[in-house]
């Protein structure tokens, strides 16, 4: 079975500061990895995904994530955050041998002026 751990439930940062949201997964097979964002009162929106190839993945709104197979991590980063980045961020995994997407519990990013 696979699981997803988001190590921080809440991350408060000041505007224009860098941020890293951590995600670790456990799986006995190869995986596809995703980050979704959920703005207040809105549905889940895909930020970026890793399927194969380059381990550094760039997504929308200036976010990027790096797949590290040896550390089974897929941390999300942004060099300079904006107030509008305030949202809930979810890391998700699809194992290569089935189609179930498993989500982490989420990290609430709060950007303060």
């Amino acid at each position: 079975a696979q699981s997803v751990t988001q190590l921080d439930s809440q991350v408060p940062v000041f505007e224009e500061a860098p941020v890293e949201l951590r995600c670790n997964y456990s799986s006995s097979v190869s995986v596809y990895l995703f980050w979704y964002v959920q703005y207040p009162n809105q549905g889940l929106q895909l930020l970026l995904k890793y399927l194969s190839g380059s381990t550094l993945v760039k997504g929308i709104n200036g976010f990027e994530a790096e797949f590290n197979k040896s550390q089974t991590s897929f941390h999300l980063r942004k060099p300079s955050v904006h107030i509008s980045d305030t949202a809930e961020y979810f890391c998700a995994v699809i194992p290569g041998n089935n189609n179930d997407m498993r989500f982490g519990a989420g990290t609430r990013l709060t950007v303060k002026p």
Partner: protein
Amino acid sequence: GAGVSQTPSNKVTEKGKYVELRCDPISGHTALYWYRQSLGQGPEFLIYFQGTGAADDSGLPNDRFFAVRPEGSVSTLKIQRTERGDSAVYLCASSLQAAETQYFGPGTRLLVL
């Protein structure tokens, strides 16, 4: 084009009642997924359809939950004898093919009194 739509957006019911939640996927998407998101948690996988058939229903919590997709497009999630613990946001997602990017609807917020 139109995204995934879900109706109703909110549903309030009494304990013991039957409810149906509807999902309209993106046109042409063969895969459809249902998730349940409780407060403060990430989405929890319930069931996945490939075409008309349920390819994986391992996430359904018990036999009170059932879902159909008779024509390979619209899907209905059915909950019998609702319990207060069923209160959550029920999310639907669709993808062009299995294991590809899932696009989420806005969800149906179910409250069981």
